């Protein structure tokens, strides 16, 4: 019962036949050349044919390459801007704004093209960190989206594509202005927190009285807003301080992934969980949830429940903490125990506890506020100064609008950055309603579901092309400035509003005037633009007066909530796709979901028990061959067929489906028709949206199958288990030196003379690094698995998108993957005894690299700076290196995914035939503008892998050489490190004793430091810091055999 095992998939857990076969071969199929034919040797005259081909191709190559060189032109500027040097990047501070989210960013612009964004670490809005989410990282690709509407258009009929409008829009503007004057105008937007835009909107409605502005969030937070209004008198969301909390309780809130300002929360969370090894302490995180979420995976203790029980849990907790409410009895003993533990911890840590809840029910949120009030969180871990303004939509306002539309009470509907025809729960009602408006105008950037129903579409520019501002938290203003001219004929929607209300000012001028006046001069404005924000020097913490009048009513309503009869459904957002607005972004679609490891799809996540109940065998056919059974559920009386993924840690009676999928044609080539649209399942019966459904019945296995491209069976370790290291906090306090001892044992066994494992335990010569030696440290305790690093790496290193069909063939190209390990009791893989560990895995740059020895052409070899180098032009594609890599981090480029070759046929091969639409979208000239010119675009037939962002290292060294200051190379950051909001990844020169990475390894965290598969003596340059879990449950692999046997095993592996 005590025995734990770390495993990534069921094949690995049960060591099935199919799994053994899978891990035997690095590549799961033969070369395409051999696939469909009998084999070259069976051909009639293979030798002669071969010689013919060789002769012909040599001659062809000679003719193509030798006789005439192409004339290349070099065209300098006519008038070069003064501060621009071709080939040297420039950085502009601007702000990512999408559906209310505000992230101040620094955009890297190379030769006029923005190619990378990272957080602006000067701003309070980002929490003063550079780390961002995967969605912010990928936003630069959206700028070059081929599906963006390239001109203002008129929708003539639903059957034909929109018609381009003439260059001069004056007649149209007059026509629309005249129409606006006729009747009530409604402006429907996502959350607007831009001060200038708000002013323009209020001026606009002063001109057209009787109209109104409706803010509508795809995934609503109106429950929180209304609860805060009821209890604190403010319709805002406070600022949470996870770093100040010693006890973090989340009841269904995915605060590390998708909940509100999650990147900032993740950074604070990691701060509270940083281990000081002399006096190890960390916050305790307890998660209550129905499904296995990203946040739940990181929790110390996790208790699972039905979504309908959320209210009961909150009530019980409130009652336990001394709230004068009567709580309904809970049937589940584990859950009761969980509430007892939680209440006790919160009582012990008054003023240092924080309870957050993901429910959108205002009553439940009122009770949560009451809990936080009792634990003294108000003013301590909950800060009411500078509250968050990124979500402001109120559900019943939107419901009223849909009603008014259907009643014909709306004259003109203007839509900006909202897409209710896709994501409103009753989209059909909206669709019929919008037809009844006299005029509908959309400012969305593409012909999406809603725009297609409007008369005119006047696309708004992308944020990287725009001037603008945003006030993500009250008093913290972030500014936008364009990093590139408008790529297309787009116009600010604010300019349209200004024009129609009779002003001739362009929004750009309006914006500049506003801030020049407000800041008192051009130079102050310039400074603010350079900073990217206007913020006070210090922020204060404030509490707010709590009014408990609403608690009793709320409690009685909450206790009246009935549980479903059988199965319940949870609707959640994925950290990659979110609400679905960016569904046409291939980087995000191909990012494996942190928990399920699935790409390019949504599905129903169910528990193993439910799978068994449905008669689904979780065998090799299911796990290894990707074919997932399709199950029919009857949800709210409607049959819904969904492929299932069985996930440990799910409640037995809960299924979970991600929102944001199932977009229609207009979203673009990559995103259309991916997955199933779950928005119609959202419960809209009450005043506030409910993201769970209790009425799920009649689950039955249809017998059909569906292939989900998921990566959890790719890149396996063949049972080598010293990859993940995890301890409970108590164990670590008791025995802090387990890892140093292990290292000492290795040295004693294999380096008997010098006790130097590194130098003595090998037959190979020892590499010397006279200058810099690059190394990385990854803290598994800080890593939340959010995947921002994967996307940052993709953006920085031109990592290709391969499409769903290629992921199915294990051809995904991510240089950096995040392995997700489940750790559970071997005989009980279910439920809340589950630990999940995320481990970023990338090329370990081994100093004694197994890949280097086997390359026949020395295309991969070692540098004096400790880099495992890859020379693409030397690689002949034998893939021996990938076979010999113990970490499985080498990727073979099977089909010229980036369109680097001039030969189109290199994208076609038997087995696939044609690459997915998403790949072809990435090959478009427009999309290719996102490529980083400092990194080679690899073509077909070569191995590629993490380079430690060598282009950045070279650049940093060049800067240091130019300014003759070696300390400058301390500033170098790899893309993954820069994107990590929790600071899990630290990179630097380990020969420099002042560097962070040297200090972490040798001084600050040497007790948690370990190398993956250390005993095989490959000498990785990446070290990991073991995960510490603050729990009483047993954690980590217990010694299976005696120490002697283990040593023998290590011995064998290092020689085998």
């Amino acid at each position, binding site marked *: 019962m005590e025995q734990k095992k770390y495993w990534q998939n069921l094949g690995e857990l049960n060591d099935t036949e199919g799994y053994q076969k899978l891990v035997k071969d690095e590549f799961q199929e033969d070369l395409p050349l051999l696939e469909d034919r009998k084999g070259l040797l069976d051909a009639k005259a293979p030798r002669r044919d071969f010689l013919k081909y060789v002769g012909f191709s040599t001659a062809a190559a*000679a003719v193509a390459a030798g006789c005439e060189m192409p004339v290349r032109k070099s065209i300098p500027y006519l008038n070069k801007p003064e501060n621009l040097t071709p080939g040297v990047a420039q950085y502009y501070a601007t702000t990512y704004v999408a559906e209310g989210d505000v992230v101040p960013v620094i955009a890297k612009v190379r030769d006029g093209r923005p190619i990378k964004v990272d957080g602006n670490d000067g701003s309070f809005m980002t929490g003063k960190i550079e780390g961002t989410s995967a969605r912010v990282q990928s936003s630069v690709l959206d700028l070059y989206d081929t599906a963006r509407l390239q001109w203002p258009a008129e929708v003539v009929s639903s059957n034909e594509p929109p018609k381009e409008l003439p260059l001069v829009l004056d007649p149209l503007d007059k026509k629309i202005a005249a129409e606006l004057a006729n009747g009530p105008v409604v402006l429907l937007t996502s959350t607007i927190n831009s001060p200038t835009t708000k002013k323009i909107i209020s001026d606009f409605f002063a001109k057209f009285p009787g109209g109104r502005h409706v803010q509508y969030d795809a995934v609503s937070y109106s429950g929180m807003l209304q609860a805060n209004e009821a209890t604190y008198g403010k319709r805002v969301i406070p600022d949470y301080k996870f770093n100040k909390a010693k006890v973090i309780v989340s009841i269904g809130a995915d605060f590390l992934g998708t909940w509100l300002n999650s990147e900032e929360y993740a950074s604070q969370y990691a701060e509270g969980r940083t281990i000081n090894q002399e006096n190890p302490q960390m916050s305790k995180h307890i998660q209550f949830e129905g499904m296995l979420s990203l946040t739940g995976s990181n929790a110390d203790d996790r208790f699972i429940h039905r979504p309908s029980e959320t209210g009961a849990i909150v009530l019980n907790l409130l009652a336990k903490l001394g709230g004068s409410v009567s709580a309904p009895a809970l049937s589940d003993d584990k859950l009761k125990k969980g509430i007892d533990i939680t209440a006790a911890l919160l009582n012990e840590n008054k003023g240092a506890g924080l309870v957050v809840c993901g429910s959108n029910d205002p009553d439940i949120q009122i009770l949560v506020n009451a809990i936080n009030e009792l634990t003294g969180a108000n003013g301590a871990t909950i800060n009411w100064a500078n509250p968050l303004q990124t979500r402001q939509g109120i559900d019943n306002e939107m419901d009223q609008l849909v009603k008014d539309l259907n009643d014909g009470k709306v004259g003109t509907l203007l839509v900006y950055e909202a897409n209710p025809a896709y994501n409103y729960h009753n989209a059909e009602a909206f669709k019929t309603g919008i037809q009844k408006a006299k005029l509908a105008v959309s400012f969305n950037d593409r012909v999406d579901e809603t725009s297609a129903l409007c008369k005119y579409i006047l696309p708004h520019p992308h944020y990287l092309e725009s001037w603008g501002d945003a006030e993500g938290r009250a008093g913290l203003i972030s500014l936008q400035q364009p990093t590139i001219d408008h790529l297309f004929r787009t116009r600010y929607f604010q300019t349209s509003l200004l024009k129609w209300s009779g002003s001739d000012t362009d929004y750009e001028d309006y914006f500049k005037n506003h801030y020049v006046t407000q800041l008192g001069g051009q130079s102050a404005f310039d400074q603010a633009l350079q900073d990217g924000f206007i913020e006070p020097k210090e922020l204060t913490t404030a509490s707010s007066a709590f009014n408990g009048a609403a608690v009793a009513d709320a409690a009685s309503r909450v206790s009246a909530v009935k549980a479903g009869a059988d199965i319940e459904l949870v609707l959640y957002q994925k950290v990659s796709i979110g609400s679905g607005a960016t569904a046409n972004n291939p980087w995000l679609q191909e990012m494996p979901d942190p928990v399920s490891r699935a790409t390019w799809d949504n599905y129903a996540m169910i528990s193993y028990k439910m799978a068994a109940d449905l008669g689904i065998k979780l065998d090799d056919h299911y796990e290894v061959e990707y074919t997932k059974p399709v199950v029919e559920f009857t949800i709210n009386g409607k049959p819904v067929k969904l492929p299932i993924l069985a996930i440990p840690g799910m409640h037995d009676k809960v299924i979970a489906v991600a929102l944001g999928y199932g977009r229609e044609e207009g979203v673009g080539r990559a995103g259309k028709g991916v997955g199933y649209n779950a928005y119609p399942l959202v419960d809209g019966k009450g005043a506030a949206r409910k993201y769970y459904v209790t009425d799920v019945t009649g689950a039955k296995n249809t017998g059909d199958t569906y292939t989900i491209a998921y990566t959890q069976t790719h890149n396996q370790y063949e049972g080598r288990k010293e990859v993940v290291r995890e301890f409970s906090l108590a164990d670590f306090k008791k025995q802090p030196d387990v890892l140093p001892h292990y290292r000492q044992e290795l040295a004693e066994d294999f380096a008997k003379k010098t006790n130097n494992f590194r130098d003595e335990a090998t037959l190979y010569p020892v590499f010397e690094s*006279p200058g810099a030696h690059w190394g990385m440290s990854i803290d598994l305790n800080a890593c939340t698995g959010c995947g921002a690093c994967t996307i940052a790496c993709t953006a920085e290193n031109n990592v290709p998108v391969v499409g769903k069909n290629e992921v199915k063939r294990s051809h995904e190209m991510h240089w950096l993957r995040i392995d997700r390990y489940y750790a559970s009791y071997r005989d009980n893989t279910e439920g809340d005894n589950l630990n999940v560990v995320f481990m970023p895995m990338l090329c370990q740059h081994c100093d004694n690299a197994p890949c280097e020895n086997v390359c026949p052409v020395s295309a991969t070899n070692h540098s004096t700076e400790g880099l495992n180098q890859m020379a693409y032009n*030397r690689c002949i594609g034998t893939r021996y290196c990938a076979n010999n890599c113990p970490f499985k981090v080498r990727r073979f480029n099977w089909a010229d995914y980036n369109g680097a070759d001039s030969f189109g046929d290199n994208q076609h091969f038997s087995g696939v035939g044609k690459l997915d639409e998403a790949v072809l979208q990435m090959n478009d000239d427009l999309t290719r503008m996102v490529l980083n010119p400092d*990194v*080679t675009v690899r073509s077909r037939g070569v191995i590629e892998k993490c380079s430690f962002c060598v282009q950045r290292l*070279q650049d940093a060294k060049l800067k240091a050489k130019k300014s003759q200051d070696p300390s400058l190379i301390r500033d170098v950051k790899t893309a993954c490190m820069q994107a990590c909001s929790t600071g899990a990844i630290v990179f630097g020169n380990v020969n420099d004793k002042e560097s962070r990475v040297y200090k972490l390894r040798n001084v600050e965290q040497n007790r948690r430091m370990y190398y993956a598969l250390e005993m095989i003596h490959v000498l990785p340059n990446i070290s990991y810091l073991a995960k510490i879990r603050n729990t009483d449950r047993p954690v980590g692999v217990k010694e299976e055999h005696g120490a002697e046997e283990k040593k023998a095993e290590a011995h064998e592996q290092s020689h085998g």
Partner: protein
Amino acid sequence: MVAYFCSERDTTTSHKLLDIMSYHRSTVKSFFSGLAIVFALSFLSISVNAQEGKAIFNQKCATCHSLDKKLVGPALRGMEERGPWGDRKKLYAWIHNPAGFIANDPYTQGLKNEYNGVVMTAFADLTEAQIDAIADYIKNAPPPGGGGPTNPDTPVAKAPESDNTLLFGVLTLILAVIALTLLQVNANLKKMSDDKEGVPAAEPVPFYRNKLYIALAIIALFVVGGYATIQGAVGLGRQQNYEPEQPIYYSHKVHAGINQISCLYCHTGAQEGKQATIPSVNVCMNCHMAINEYTKGPELYRADGSVVNGTAEIKKLYEYAGWDEGKQQYTGKGKPIEWVRIHNLPDHVYFNHSQHVVVGQQQCQTCHGSITEMDEVKQFSDLSMGWCVNCHRETKVQFNNNKFYSIYEKFHEDIRNKKIDSVTVEMIGGLECQKCHY
């Protein structure tokens, strides 16, 4: 830099008439090396101060002033005899703050009227010593009409190293013939001695049917042919001596050679980034707003031997820049110049000019050849990987002069212990793949 691939193919016949050109070049070259010696002597008399002054003059003043010609501003030769400029204090005041000075000075007020109300730009950053240097230069500058002075520092181009291949070839041929003859003689002598001794001789085989000879010939052919094929294959895609015809006949010899314009004045990027950058048209116009004719320099010739009308080429520039010479203003109808790119590296090669120019302190000429003597530029080096690597093997790093290299403690220790006397680029990893390929 915007570079793109053109679908058209280069059909210019740049190499056809090379021999005619080389005749012209050599006469021109000898003429100028003569001049160079004359001027090298005359330069000795000029103070170092004036040399510095010249550099500052070219950098700061030459955009608007010439020594002998009225441009945007007046000609400056003999300026100390005019107006208040005999007094250096007033000169400092004027240069540092023209707007302030002009208020109380009738002479400069007059100048302002003469030059359509344009007042000189302030150069507050020039120190008094620097202004002195400029004034000294103006005073001592050689009078016009003597042709362009050549920098005495410029190394006089070495005579091309004599090519011995032909000599060796001829020698090999002669030796081969001798060997063949001796073999024949030997055979004949053997035959004669055999005849004498009465040994029955085999039927004589003529040498062209002798199997030994045929085998030897085939082996020789194979070796020579194989070598040629491999050399040819290796050279595919290389463009050494590529000298395309450019949209404007721009002579580096006239600009960088005779007129001594620093390479970095135009190729500013060489110090800052990857690309040296071809200057934008506005940089050309800095000088050519004033220099509107080509009269004083040597005759220029195209590759086909035809004479170039320098003035007409400057007019072409005006066409591109959209400069109306009559009205002395821009029409706003300029267009960028589409130069033909000469130096091309494959996409998988990362090359950074600033690394070599600033850190490595290499001269432009190391890779680009004696650019100051080329009219239209041709590719001097073959830009092959072997060529890069050889240089990295031989070149010594500025090891003690650059504090960055203090991180190479081991090498510093070895130098102190006299184990090594210098550090080459190779030793700090200059031959590793990912220094240039990533």
